[in-house]
Protein backbone atom coordinates (compact mmCIF):
# COMPACT_ATOMS: atom_id res chain seq x y z
CA UNK A 1 0.00 0.00 0.00
CA UNK A 2 1.28 3.44 -0.95
CA UNK A 3 1.78 5.98 1.83
CA UNK A 4 -0.24 9.07 1.01
CA UNK A 5 0.27 11.12 4.17
CA UNK A 6 3.43 11.13 6.23
CA UNK A 7 3.58 13.03 9.49
CA UNK A 8 6.90 13.53 11.26
CA UNK A 9 7.68 15.16 14.62
CA UNK A 10 4.42 17.11 14.64
CA UNK A 11 4.16 19.72 17.38
CA UNK A 12 1.41 22.16 18.19
CA UNK A 13 1.09 24.68 21.02
CA UNK A 14 -1.74 26.93 22.10
CA UNK A 15 -0.17 30.00 23.68
CA UNK A 16 2.61 28.45 25.79
CA UNK A 17 1.06 25.05 26.23
CA UNK A 18 2.23 22.29 23.93
CA UNK A 19 -0.70 19.99 23.11
CA UNK A 20 0.88 17.77 20.45
CA UNK A 21 4.35 16.53 21.35
CA UNK A 22 6.22 15.60 18.20
CA UNK A 23 4.09 12.74 16.92
CA UNK A 24 4.66 10.82 13.70
CA UNK A 25 2.56 8.39 11.68
CA UNK A 26 1.56 7.52 8.14
CA UNK A 27 -1.74 7.15 6.35
CA UNK A 28 -1.73 4.47 3.68
CA UNK A 29 -3.85 4.34 0.58
CA UNK A 30 -7.11 2.42 0.94
CA UNK A 31 -7.08 2.01 4.71
CA UNK A 32 -9.49 3.09 7.41
CA UNK A 33 -7.20 4.55 10.04
CA UNK A 34 -9.01 5.17 13.32
CA UNK A 35 -7.81 7.62 15.93
CA UNK A 36 -8.87 6.72 19.45
CA UNK A 37 -8.26 8.74 22.57
CA UNK A 38 -9.90 10.30 25.60
CA UNK A 39 -10.97 13.95 25.66
CA UNK A 40 -8.00 16.24 25.30
CA UNK A 41 -5.85 13.55 23.70
CA UNK A 42 -5.14 15.76 20.70
CA UNK A 43 -7.10 13.81 18.09
CA UNK A 44 -9.09 16.72 16.71
CA UNK A 45 -6.08 19.03 16.75
CA UNK A 46 -4.07 16.45 14.81
CA UNK A 47 -6.93 15.98 12.35
CA UNK A 48 -7.34 19.73 11.86
CA UNK A 49 -3.63 20.10 11.18
CA UNK A 50 -3.80 17.36 8.56
CA UNK A 51 -6.66 19.20 6.84
CA UNK A 52 -4.26 22.11 6.26
CA UNK A 53 -6.59 24.50 8.07
CA UNK A 54 -4.61 24.65 11.31
CA UNK A 55 -0.96 25.66 11.39
CA UNK A 56 1.53 23.69 13.45
CA UNK A 57 4.69 24.69 15.28
CA UNK A 58 7.11 21.91 14.46
CA UNK A 59 7.60 18.84 12.29
CA UNK A 60 6.34 18.15 8.80
CA UNK A 61 3.39 16.76 6.90
CA UNK A 62 3.78 15.50 3.39
CA UNK A 63 1.28 14.31 0.83
CA UNK A 64 2.72 11.75 -1.59
CA UNK A 65 6.21 12.96 -0.75
CA UNK A 66 5.58 16.72 -1.07
CA UNK A 67 4.96 19.15 1.77
CA UNK A 68 1.24 19.91 1.94
CA UNK A 69 2.14 23.61 1.84
CA UNK A 70 3.91 23.33 -1.52
CA UNK A 71 0.43 23.34 -3.12
CA UNK A 72 -2.03 23.78 -0.25
CA UNK A 73 -5.12 24.37 -2.41
CA UNK A 74 -4.28 21.38 -4.60
CA UNK A 75 -3.84 19.26 -1.47
CA UNK A 76 -7.09 20.48 0.06
CA UNK A 77 -8.97 19.66 -3.14
CA UNK A 78 -8.12 15.98 -2.60
CA UNK A 79 -9.63 15.91 0.88
CA UNK A 80 -13.17 15.55 2.11
CA UNK A 81 -13.78 16.82 5.63
CA UNK A 82 -16.56 15.79 7.98
CA UNK A 83 -16.14 18.16 10.94
CA UNK A 84 -17.17 17.23 14.45
CA UNK A 85 -19.65 20.14 14.55
CA UNK A 86 -22.43 20.22 11.99
CA UNK A 87 -21.26 22.59 9.28
CA UNK A 88 -24.45 23.19 7.33
CA UNK A 89 -26.63 26.09 6.29
CA UNK A 90 -29.81 25.36 8.25
CA UNK A 91 -32.01 27.62 6.11
CA UNK A 92 -31.05 25.94 2.85
CA UNK A 93 -32.21 22.63 1.43
CA UNK A 94 -30.05 19.52 1.67
CA UNK A 95 -29.42 19.66 -2.06
CA UNK A 96 -28.40 23.32 -1.99
CA UNK A 97 -25.92 22.61 0.82
CA UNK A 98 -24.29 19.76 -1.09
CA UNK A 99 -24.22 21.71 -4.36
CA UNK A 100 -22.62 24.72 -2.69
CA UNK A 101 -19.88 22.87 -0.84
CA UNK A 102 -19.12 20.64 -3.84
CA UNK A 103 -18.81 23.72 -6.05
CA UNK A 104 -15.98 24.94 -3.80
CA UNK A 105 -14.03 21.90 -4.96
CA UNK A 106 -14.38 23.09 -8.54
CA UNK A 107 -17.31 20.89 -9.59
CA UNK A 108 -19.54 22.49 -12.23
CA UNK A 109 -22.46 21.64 -14.49
CA UNK A 110 -23.30 17.98 -14.91
CA UNK A 111 -20.38 16.83 -12.74
CA UNK A 112 -21.74 18.95 -9.89
CA UNK A 113 -25.26 17.56 -10.26
CA UNK A 114 -23.92 14.02 -10.51
CA UNK A 115 -21.74 14.49 -7.41
CA UNK A 116 -24.73 15.84 -5.50
CA UNK A 117 -26.94 12.93 -6.60
CA UNK A 118 -24.25 10.44 -5.57
CA UNK A 119 -23.73 12.05 -2.14
CA UNK A 120 -27.42 12.30 -1.28
CA UNK A 121 -28.13 8.79 -2.48
CA UNK A 122 -25.16 7.42 -0.61
CA UNK A 123 -26.30 8.98 2.65
CA UNK A 124 -29.94 7.95 2.12
CA UNK A 125 -31.18 11.51 1.76
CA UNK A 126 -32.32 11.55 -1.88
CA UNK A 127 -35.98 11.83 -0.93
CA UNK A 128 -35.18 14.76 1.39
CA UNK A 129 -33.09 16.68 -1.15
CA UNK A 130 -35.56 19.55 -1.41
CA UNK A 131 -36.23 19.81 2.33
CA UNK A 132 -34.65 22.51 4.44
CA UNK A 133 -31.99 21.34 6.89
CA UNK A 134 -33.77 22.95 9.85
CA UNK A 135 -36.52 20.34 9.46
CA UNK A 136 -34.05 17.43 9.74
CA UNK A 137 -33.45 15.15 12.73
CA UNK A 138 -29.98 14.97 14.31
CA UNK A 139 -29.19 11.76 12.45
CA UNK A 140 -30.20 13.21 9.10
CA UNK A 141 -28.04 16.28 9.70
CA UNK A 142 -25.08 14.03 10.53
CA UNK A 143 -25.62 12.17 7.26
CA UNK A 144 -25.88 15.42 5.34
CA UNK A 145 -22.66 16.56 7.03
CA UNK A 146 -21.06 13.53 5.39
CA UNK A 147 -22.81 14.08 2.04
CA UNK A 148 -21.28 17.57 1.83
CA UNK A 149 -17.82 16.00 2.20
CA UNK A 150 -18.07 13.25 -0.41
CA UNK A 151 -19.86 14.81 -3.40
CA UNK A 152 -16.51 15.65 -5.02
CA UNK A 153 -15.27 12.08 -4.39
CA UNK A 154 -12.15 12.89 -2.39
CA UNK A 155 -9.07 10.68 -2.20
CA UNK A 156 -8.85 11.04 1.56
CA UNK A 157 -11.93 11.41 3.71
CA UNK A 158 -11.31 12.84 7.18
CA UNK A 159 -14.13 12.20 9.65
CA UNK A 160 -13.99 13.74 13.10
CA UNK A 161 -16.47 11.94 15.37
CA UNK A 162 -19.16 11.72 12.69
CA UNK A 163 -21.61 9.66 14.76
CA UNK A 164 -21.87 11.79 17.91
CA UNK A 165 -25.39 11.93 19.35
CA UNK A 166 -27.29 9.96 16.73
CA UNK A 167 -29.64 6.99 16.78
CA UNK A 168 -28.39 3.41 16.17
CA UNK A 169 -30.00 3.25 12.71
CA UNK A 170 -28.18 6.35 11.47
CA UNK A 171 -24.95 5.13 13.07
CA UNK A 172 -25.24 1.78 11.32
CA UNK A 173 -25.95 3.54 8.02
CA UNK A 174 -22.87 5.73 8.45
CA UNK A 175 -20.56 2.85 9.40
CA UNK A 176 -21.77 0.74 6.47
CA UNK A 177 -21.22 3.79 4.28
CA UNK A 178 -17.66 4.24 5.51
CA UNK A 179 -16.83 0.63 4.64
CA UNK A 180 -18.49 1.09 1.26
CA UNK A 181 -16.44 4.21 0.52
CA UNK A 182 -13.26 2.28 1.29
CA UNK A 183 -14.32 -0.41 -1.18
CA UNK A 184 -14.71 2.33 -3.77
CA UNK A 185 -11.07 3.29 -3.22
CA UNK A 186 -11.29 6.10 -0.67
CA UNK A 187 -8.81 6.33 2.20
CA UNK A 188 -10.43 7.22 5.49
CA UNK A 189 -9.14 8.87 8.64
CA UNK A 190 -11.67 8.46 11.40
CA UNK A 191 -11.76 9.70 15.00
CA UNK A 192 -14.23 8.47 17.57
CA UNK A 193 -14.81 7.63 21.22
CA UNK A 194 -16.81 4.55 20.37
CA UNK A 195 -14.78 1.33 20.63
CA UNK A 196 -17.34 -0.79 18.81
CA UNK A 197 -17.13 1.52 15.80
CA UNK A 198 -13.37 1.15 15.71
CA UNK A 199 -13.63 -2.62 16.02
CA UNK A 200 -16.14 -2.71 13.19
CA UNK A 201 -14.51 -0.51 10.58
CA UNK A 202 -10.79 0.01 11.27
CA UNK A 203 -7.97 -1.53 9.33
CA UNK A 204 -5.47 0.17 11.63
CA UNK A 205 -5.74 2.03 14.95
CA UNK A 206 -3.74 4.83 16.55
CA UNK A 207 -4.36 5.48 20.24
CA UNK A 208 -3.49 8.97 21.42
CA UNK A 209 -3.30 10.40 24.91
CA UNK A 210 -2.11 13.78 26.17
CA UNK A 211 -0.73 14.75 22.78
CA UNK A 212 1.28 11.56 22.24
CA UNK A 213 0.72 8.38 20.26
CA UNK A 214 0.76 5.62 22.85
CA UNK A 215 -0.14 2.63 20.69
CA UNK A 216 -0.53 1.77 17.05
CA UNK A 217 -1.60 -1.39 15.28
CA UNK A 218 -4.51 -3.42 14.06
CA UNK A 219 -7.44 -4.32 16.26
CA UNK A 220 -6.03 -7.83 16.65
CA UNK A 221 -2.43 -6.82 17.35
CA UNK A 222 -3.49 -4.31 20.02
CA UNK A 223 -5.62 -6.93 21.74
CA UNK A 224 -2.83 -9.48 21.51
CA UNK A 225 -0.50 -7.05 23.24
CA UNK A 226 -2.92 -6.69 26.11
CA UNK A 227 -3.99 -10.30 26.59
CA UNK A 228 -0.76 -11.36 28.24
CA UNK A 229 -1.39 -8.88 31.05
CA UNK A 230 -5.09 -9.27 31.57
CA UNK A 231 -6.86 -12.28 30.11
CA UNK A 232 -7.15 -14.52 27.10
CA UNK A 233 -7.60 -13.20 23.57
CA UNK A 234 -11.31 -14.04 23.60
CA UNK A 235 -12.12 -11.89 26.61
CA UNK A 236 -9.91 -8.89 25.84
CA UNK A 237 -11.88 -6.10 24.23
CA UNK A 238 -10.57 -2.97 22.60
CA UNK A 239 -12.01 -1.07 25.55
CA UNK A 240 -9.83 -3.11 27.92
CA UNK A 241 -6.79 -2.24 25.82
CA UNK A 242 -7.79 1.41 25.73
CA UNK A 243 -8.32 1.67 29.50
CA UNK A 244 -5.10 -0.22 30.15
CA UNK A 245 -3.21 2.32 28.07
CA UNK A 246 -4.95 5.53 29.07
CA UNK A 247 -5.91 4.74 32.67
CA UNK A 248 -9.29 4.70 34.37
CA UNK A 249 -9.28 8.13 35.99
CA UNK A 250 -11.79 10.70 34.76
CA UNK A 251 -10.70 13.32 32.21
CA UNK A 252 -11.84 16.89 31.93
Amino acid at each position, binding site marked *: MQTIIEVNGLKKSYKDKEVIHGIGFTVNEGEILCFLGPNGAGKSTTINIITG*ALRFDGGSISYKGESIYSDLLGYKSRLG*IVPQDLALYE*DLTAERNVL*FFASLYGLKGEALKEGCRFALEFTGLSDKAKDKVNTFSGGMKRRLNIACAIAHKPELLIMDEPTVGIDPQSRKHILEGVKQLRKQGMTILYTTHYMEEVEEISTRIIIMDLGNIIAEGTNESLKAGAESNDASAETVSLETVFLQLTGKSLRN
Partner: protein
Amino acid sequence: MYKFKQIFRLDLMNLLTNPMWVFYAIGFPLALILVLGFLMSGSYGHTVTSYDYYGVALMIFGIFNAATFSANSIMEERIKSPNMRIVYSPVRPFYIHFSKVLASFVFCTAAYSLVAVLLHITVGINYGGADWWAALAIMLAGNFFFASLGVTVCCLLKNEGITNNILSTLFALFAILGGLFFPIDGLGKAISAISWLSPAKWMLAACFRIIYDGDFTLLAPLIGGLALLSALSVLLGARFFRGEDYI
Protein backbone atom coordinates in the same frame (compact mmCIF):
# COMPACT_ATOMS: atom_id res chain seq x y z
CA MET B 1 -13.45 33.42 -9.81
CA TYR B 2 -16.02 30.59 -10.02
CA LYS B 3 -15.47 29.70 -6.37
CA PHE B 4 -15.60 33.36 -5.32
CA LYS B 5 -18.91 33.77 -7.15
CA GLN B 6 -20.35 30.76 -5.35
CA ILE B 7 -19.35 32.10 -1.92
CA PHE B 8 -20.51 35.63 -2.72
CA ARG B 9 -23.91 34.42 -3.95
CA LEU B 10 -24.44 32.41 -0.80
CA ASP B 11 -23.28 35.24 1.49
CA LEU B 12 -25.69 37.59 -0.24
CA MET B 13 -28.51 35.07 0.03
CA ASN B 14 -27.82 34.62 3.74
CA LEU B 15 -28.33 38.36 4.20
CA LEU B 16 -31.40 38.57 1.97
CA THR B 17 -33.17 35.63 3.57
CA ASN B 18 -32.74 36.77 7.16
CA PRO B 19 -35.97 38.63 8.05
CA MET B 20 -34.30 40.40 10.98
CA TRP B 21 -31.58 41.88 8.80
CA VAL B 22 -34.01 42.79 6.03
CA PHE B 23 -36.16 44.66 8.56
CA TYR B 24 -33.10 46.32 10.09
CA ALA B 25 -31.90 47.46 6.64
CA ILE B 26 -35.24 48.56 5.18
CA GLY B 27 -38.01 48.80 7.79
CA PHE B 28 -35.98 50.41 10.54
CA PRO B 29 -34.52 53.41 8.61
CA LEU B 30 -37.82 53.89 6.80
CA ALA B 31 -39.80 54.01 10.04
CA LEU B 32 -37.20 56.14 11.84
CA ILE B 33 -37.09 58.74 9.06
CA LEU B 34 -40.87 58.93 8.81
CA VAL B 35 -41.40 59.18 12.58
CA LEU B 36 -38.65 61.75 13.21
CA GLY B 37 -39.65 63.66 10.07
CA PHE B 38 -43.21 63.87 11.34
CA LEU B 39 -42.35 64.70 14.97
CA MET B 40 -39.81 67.39 14.07
CA SER B 41 -41.76 68.95 11.21
CA GLY B 42 -42.42 72.11 13.26
CA SER B 43 -38.68 72.73 13.78
CA TYR B 44 -37.78 72.87 10.10
CA GLY B 45 -38.72 75.23 7.28
CA HIS B 46 -40.25 74.64 3.86
CA THR B 47 -37.08 74.73 1.76
CA VAL B 48 -35.46 71.96 3.77
CA THR B 49 -38.23 70.05 5.50
CA SER B 50 -37.67 67.72 8.44
CA TYR B 51 -38.21 64.82 6.05
CA ASP B 52 -35.51 66.20 3.74
CA TYR B 53 -33.10 66.51 6.67
CA TYR B 54 -33.67 63.11 8.25
CA GLY B 55 -34.07 61.46 4.84
CA VAL B 56 -30.38 62.22 4.24
CA ALA B 57 -29.00 62.25 7.81
CA LEU B 58 -30.52 58.95 8.91
CA MET B 59 -29.59 57.31 5.63
CA ILE B 60 -25.99 58.13 6.54
CA PHE B 61 -26.60 56.56 9.95
CA GLY B 62 -27.92 53.51 8.10
CA ILE B 63 -24.76 53.42 6.00
CA PHE B 64 -22.71 53.14 9.22
CA ASN B 65 -24.69 50.02 9.99
CA ALA B 66 -23.26 48.26 6.93
CA ALA B 67 -20.49 47.39 9.40
CA THR B 68 -22.97 45.50 11.59
CA PHE B 69 -24.25 43.43 8.65
CA SER B 70 -20.77 42.53 7.50
CA ALA B 71 -19.60 41.63 11.02
CA ASN B 72 -22.62 39.37 11.37
CA SER B 73 -22.03 37.76 8.00
CA ILE B 74 -18.53 36.68 8.95
CA MET B 75 -18.91 35.48 12.52
CA GLU B 76 -22.56 35.20 13.48
CA GLU B 77 -23.16 31.85 15.24
CA ARG B 78 -25.67 30.59 12.64
CA ILE B 79 -23.13 31.11 9.87
CA LYS B 80 -19.88 30.39 11.69
CA SER B 81 -20.09 26.58 11.37
CA PRO B 82 -20.72 26.46 7.62
CA ASN B 83 -18.04 29.12 7.20
CA MET B 84 -15.71 26.62 8.90
CA ARG B 85 -16.37 24.16 6.08
CA ILE B 86 -15.41 26.87 3.57
CA VAL B 87 -12.13 27.25 5.46
CA TYR B 88 -11.47 23.52 5.00
CA SER B 89 -12.16 23.70 1.26
CA PRO B 90 -9.62 24.62 -1.44
CA VAL B 91 -10.51 28.31 -1.50
CA ARG B 92 -8.19 31.30 -1.13
CA PRO B 93 -8.66 32.85 2.36
CA PHE B 94 -9.09 36.28 0.72
CA TYR B 95 -12.22 35.04 -1.05
CA ILE B 96 -13.86 34.15 2.26
CA HIS B 97 -13.18 37.51 3.82
CA PHE B 98 -13.77 39.71 0.77
CA SER B 99 -17.02 38.03 -0.27
CA LYS B 100 -18.55 39.07 3.09
CA VAL B 101 -17.54 42.67 2.42
CA LEU B 102 -18.95 42.61 -1.08
CA ALA B 103 -22.18 40.83 -0.10
CA SER B 104 -22.84 43.33 2.73
CA PHE B 105 -22.08 46.22 0.38
CA VAL B 106 -24.53 44.96 -2.26
CA PHE B 107 -27.17 44.14 0.36
CA CYS B 108 -26.98 47.58 1.99
CA THR B 109 -26.85 49.41 -1.32
CA ALA B 110 -29.98 47.60 -2.53
CA ALA B 111 -31.80 48.12 0.77
CA TYR B 112 -30.94 51.82 1.15
CA SER B 113 -31.67 52.56 -2.51
CA LEU B 114 -35.12 51.05 -2.02
CA VAL B 115 -35.64 53.14 1.13
CA ALA B 116 -34.58 56.30 -0.72
CA VAL B 117 -36.90 55.59 -3.64
CA LEU B 118 -39.82 54.86 -1.31
CA LEU B 119 -39.20 58.06 0.67
CA HIS B 120 -38.86 60.13 -2.47
CA ILE B 121 -42.18 58.80 -3.78
CA THR B 122 -44.14 58.97 -0.51
CA VAL B 123 -42.93 62.16 1.20
CA GLY B 124 -41.00 63.75 -1.65
CA ILE B 125 -37.58 63.77 0.01
CA ASN B 126 -35.07 65.74 -2.02
CA TYR B 127 -32.01 63.69 -3.00
CA GLY B 128 -30.62 66.29 -5.38
CA GLY B 129 -32.88 66.08 -8.42
CA ALA B 130 -30.65 65.77 -11.48
CA ASP B 131 -27.62 65.50 -9.16
CA TRP B 132 -28.94 62.36 -7.43
CA TRP B 133 -25.99 60.40 -8.78
CA ALA B 134 -23.62 62.36 -6.52
CA ALA B 135 -25.61 61.45 -3.40
CA LEU B 136 -25.64 57.85 -4.64
CA ALA B 137 -21.86 57.93 -5.13
CA ILE B 138 -21.42 59.05 -1.50
CA MET B 139 -23.73 56.26 -0.36
CA LEU B 140 -21.81 53.66 -2.39
CA ALA B 141 -18.42 54.81 -1.09
CA GLY B 142 -19.72 54.93 2.50
CA ASN B 143 -21.39 51.52 2.25
CA PHE B 144 -18.24 49.90 0.97
CA PHE B 145 -16.02 51.45 3.61
CA PHE B 146 -18.27 50.55 6.53
CA ALA B 147 -18.88 47.01 5.19
CA SER B 148 -15.13 46.47 5.02
CA LEU B 149 -14.63 48.05 8.46
CA GLY B 150 -17.11 45.62 10.07
CA VAL B 151 -15.30 42.58 8.66
CA THR B 152 -11.86 43.95 9.54
CA VAL B 153 -12.73 44.74 13.16
CA CYS B 154 -14.47 41.37 13.50
CA CYS B 155 -11.40 39.57 12.12
CA LEU B 156 -9.25 41.48 14.60
CA LEU B 157 -11.44 40.92 17.67
CA LYS B 158 -12.65 37.45 16.54
CA ASN B 159 -16.06 38.08 18.03
CA GLU B 160 -19.12 39.48 16.30
CA GLY B 161 -20.84 40.54 19.56
CA ILE B 162 -17.90 42.59 20.84
CA THR B 163 -17.41 44.09 17.37
CA ASN B 164 -21.03 45.20 17.23
CA ASN B 165 -20.89 46.69 20.73
CA ILE B 166 -17.75 48.68 20.01
CA LEU B 167 -18.81 49.86 16.56
CA SER B 168 -22.36 50.80 17.54
CA THR B 169 -21.07 52.92 20.43
CA LEU B 170 -18.56 54.61 18.13
CA PHE B 171 -21.20 55.18 15.44
CA ALA B 172 -23.65 56.68 17.93
CA LEU B 173 -20.92 59.16 18.94
CA PHE B 174 -20.15 59.94 15.28
CA ALA B 175 -23.85 60.39 14.58
CA ILE B 176 -24.44 62.85 17.43
CA LEU B 177 -21.22 64.73 16.72
CA GLY B 178 -21.96 64.80 13.00
CA GLY B 179 -25.45 66.18 13.54
CA LEU B 180 -27.35 63.18 12.22
CA PHE B 181 -30.06 63.38 14.91
CA PHE B 182 -30.24 67.17 15.12
CA PRO B 183 -28.17 69.96 13.55
CA ILE B 184 -25.38 70.97 15.94
CA ASP B 185 -23.88 73.90 14.02
CA GLY B 186 -26.06 76.24 16.06
CA LEU B 187 -24.38 75.09 19.31
CA GLY B 188 -21.36 77.34 18.80
CA LYS B 189 -18.24 77.66 16.69
CA ALA B 190 -16.17 75.27 18.82
CA ILE B 191 -18.68 72.44 18.63
CA SER B 192 -19.19 73.09 14.94
CA ALA B 193 -15.43 72.77 14.39
CA ILE B 194 -15.19 69.60 16.49
CA SER B 195 -18.06 68.06 14.53
CA TRP B 196 -15.76 67.78 11.48
CA LEU B 197 -13.94 65.00 13.34
CA SER B 198 -16.94 62.81 12.60
CA PRO B 199 -17.17 61.15 9.17
CA ALA B 200 -20.93 61.69 9.49
CA LYS B 201 -20.40 65.44 9.31
CA TRP B 202 -18.36 65.14 6.10
CA MET B 203 -20.96 62.93 4.47
CA LEU B 204 -23.85 65.09 5.60
CA ALA B 205 -22.22 68.35 4.56
CA ALA B 206 -21.19 66.94 1.18
CA CYS B 207 -24.74 65.72 0.52
CA PHE B 208 -26.48 68.95 1.55
CA ARG B 209 -24.05 71.13 -0.41
CA ILE B 210 -24.69 69.05 -3.53
CA ILE B 211 -28.46 68.87 -3.06
CA TYR B 212 -29.14 72.52 -2.14
CA ASP B 213 -26.19 74.53 -3.47
CA GLY B 214 -25.04 72.49 -6.44
CA ASP B 215 -21.62 72.62 -4.72
CA PHE B 216 -19.52 69.52 -5.46
CA THR B 217 -16.29 70.65 -3.74
CA LEU B 218 -16.49 68.03 -0.98
CA LEU B 219 -17.46 65.15 -3.28
CA ALA B 220 -14.04 64.19 -4.65
CA PRO B 221 -12.10 64.46 -1.36
CA LEU B 222 -14.81 62.56 0.48
CA ILE B 223 -15.05 59.73 -2.04
CA GLY B 224 -11.27 59.67 -2.44
CA GLY B 225 -10.82 59.48 1.34
CA LEU B 226 -13.40 56.72 1.70
CA ALA B 227 -11.84 54.77 -1.19
CA LEU B 228 -8.41 55.03 0.43
CA LEU B 229 -9.74 53.98 3.83
CA SER B 230 -11.65 51.12 2.20
CA ALA B 231 -8.51 49.82 0.49
CA LEU B 232 -6.63 50.01 3.79
CA SER B 233 -9.45 48.29 5.63
CA VAL B 234 -9.68 45.45 3.08
CA LEU B 235 -5.91 44.93 3.28
CA LEU B 236 -5.97 44.91 7.07
CA GLY B 237 -8.96 42.54 7.02
CA ALA B 238 -7.02 40.15 4.80
CA ARG B 239 -4.09 40.43 7.22
CA PHE B 240 -6.22 39.72 10.31
CA PHE B 241 -8.39 36.98 8.79
CA ARG B 242 -7.32 33.57 10.05
CA GLY B 243 -9.23 30.49 8.97
CA GLU B 244 -8.24 28.72 12.18
CA ASP B 245 -10.39 31.12 14.20
CA TYR B 246 -13.38 29.18 12.90
CA ILE B 247 -12.06 25.81 14.04
